[in-house]
């Protein structure tokens, strides 16, 4: 009985968050801040994808930025060259990116582990950027693609940050819900078993190869959606957006928010897109601040902000409510 009321309280909490998120454009009038929020949504989806791969399955990688680029170009070119409407271009970009992710995962997951895998993903980021830059007949090279059309639905053109925000929010909710469902399913359990102890997972019959490929492919699909949203929100894309630095940013978002938690990428992405706006005056030092934050987190909060709050809540329960059992895992 207690459990149901607990679950209900959680659902009410999530619904409240969604309502608040939906009311933001009514309150915030600044186009500039709404643009920042739309970009935050793009980063959030990128980070949520990385979270499946890094947080659930425990593999290190930087591919998210390459998937972002592939998704952007697939969606933009789908709309410009193939005359797709946005609502076809976005799923097309997601599936196309997912396919690329799948094809990369098959040989990589079969042969590589740990940092060899990470290095491969760095190589993939560079190769993707070089292809986007040099396949001029398709991508227009370093000049980039201008004039990417805005989404239209029921006669409404989503051509302002305020309107586009609802599309962003919709995909954030859908993909976060998907992350939640995956995490709490048997598939998610198998992925997390790989993170906890890959050998043990193998011993008890987890097909580690399959789940790693699945996690990687899913992260690519998330990257594709994020890319599509980005392309149609900004209206102009060029290869120099999808650089390694961005991969590090997305990684920081997951680690700072709390890797492995469904809410981790949300907190990380919002924090790392909104706070820098307040710290504009020290823009050159952004990378320095990120780096320092990650080092501090790694030492004092290895499970990110959400991991730390979980620990603190458990300590409070133990101290003030006399709860005896240790209910939190001290570290990964």
């Amino acid at each position, binding site marked *: 009985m207690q459990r149901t009321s607990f679950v209900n309280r959680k659902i009410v909490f999530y619904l409240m968050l969604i309502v608040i998120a939906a009311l933001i454009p009514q309150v915030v009038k600044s186009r500039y801040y709404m643009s920042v929020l739309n970009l935050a949504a793009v980063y959030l989806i990128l980070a949520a994808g990385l979270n499946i791969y890094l947080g659930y399955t425990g593999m290190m990688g930087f591919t998210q930025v390459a998937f972002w680029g592939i998704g952007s170009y697939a969606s933009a070119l789908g709309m410009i060259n193939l005359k797709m409407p946005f609502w076809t271009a976005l799923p097309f970009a997601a599936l196309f990116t997912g396919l690329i992710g799948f094809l990369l995962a098959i040989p990589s997951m079969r042969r590589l582990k740990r940092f060899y895998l990470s290095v491969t993903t760095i190589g993939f980021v560079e190769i993707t950027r070089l292809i986007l830059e040099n396949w001029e007949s398709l991508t227009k090279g370093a000049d980039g693609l201008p004039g990417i059309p805005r989404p239209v639905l029921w006669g409404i053109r989503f051509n302002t940050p305020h309107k586009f925000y609802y599309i962003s929010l919709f995909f954030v909710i859908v993909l976060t819900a998907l992350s939640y469902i995956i995490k709490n399913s048997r598939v998610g359990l198998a992925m997390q078993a790989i993170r906890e102890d890959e050998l043990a997972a193998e011993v008890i019959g987890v097909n580690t190869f399959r789940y790693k490929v699945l996690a990687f492919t899913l992260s690519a699909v998330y990257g594709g959606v994020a890319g599509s949203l980005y392309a149609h929100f900004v209206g102009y894309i060029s290869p120099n957006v999808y650089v390694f630095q961005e991969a590090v940013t997305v990684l920081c978002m997951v680690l700072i928010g709390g890797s492995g938690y469904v809410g981790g990428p949300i907190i990380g992405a919002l924090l790392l897109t909104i706070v820098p706006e307040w710290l504009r005056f020290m823009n050159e030092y952004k990378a320095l601040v990120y780096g320092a934050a990650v080092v501090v987190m790694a030492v004092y909060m290895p499970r990110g902000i959400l991991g730390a709050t979980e620990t603190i809540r458990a300590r409070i329960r133990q101290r003030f409510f006399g709860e005896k059992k*240790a209910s*939190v895992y001290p570290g990964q």
Partner: protein
Amino acid sequence: MLLKLENLSSHYGTVQALSDVNLYVDEGEIVTLIGANGAGKTTLLRVISGLVRPSRGQVVFADQRIDQLPPDEIVRMGIAHVPEGRMVFPAFTVRENLLIGGVNRLDQGRPREEVEAEMQQDLQAIFKLFPRLEERISQYGWSLSGGEQQMLAIGRGLMARPKLLLLDEPSLGLAPFLVKEVFSIIETIREQGTSVLLVEQNARMALRVADRAYVLETGSIVLEGPAKALLHADEVRKAYLGG
């Protein structure tokens, strides 16, 4: 014959870990494999469960060659491996640790409700065997005592519904009364119809519960026979039972 190893050899690089091992386990048997550290006991179990490929020879399980199959398929065929050092998932609850042990049932394309019902039923059976695990059902793996972790590891193995259970050093690091408990559980598991291949350094206890035994020395089987006979054999007494 449930499991048969024929002329099995295995190498780590150029180092030979197993040479020409012949061994079998019949249905309903407890077979124990004793030997010193580094004799190749763990390697032998890893070859059976598909984690290590043999360099020569074959592994036959239920009349099928399994030595080239991946570990998850071997689990699905009915061999569960309870690894040395337990390898309980620290950040998983007891319940999750057990459920993940039944992961092999997901990929068989059977109706979801049927699998769920079966899993619940098996969980109850495991709680009957290990009441302690039910008491700790929502505690995390890392917070369990060594004995509880061992029980959890065995329970996790049983969740795969094995015909053959491979146990690697289940008594390692346990207090004497827990060692007794673990061994009596091994006998119960056999009574419930699961064969057991038991690797142990605690030779005396292992030989008491087992039907037959093999002695492994630097990768080769040097002695085999009924467990009771080995318990009294001079070589075994001197080398493994302390005189």
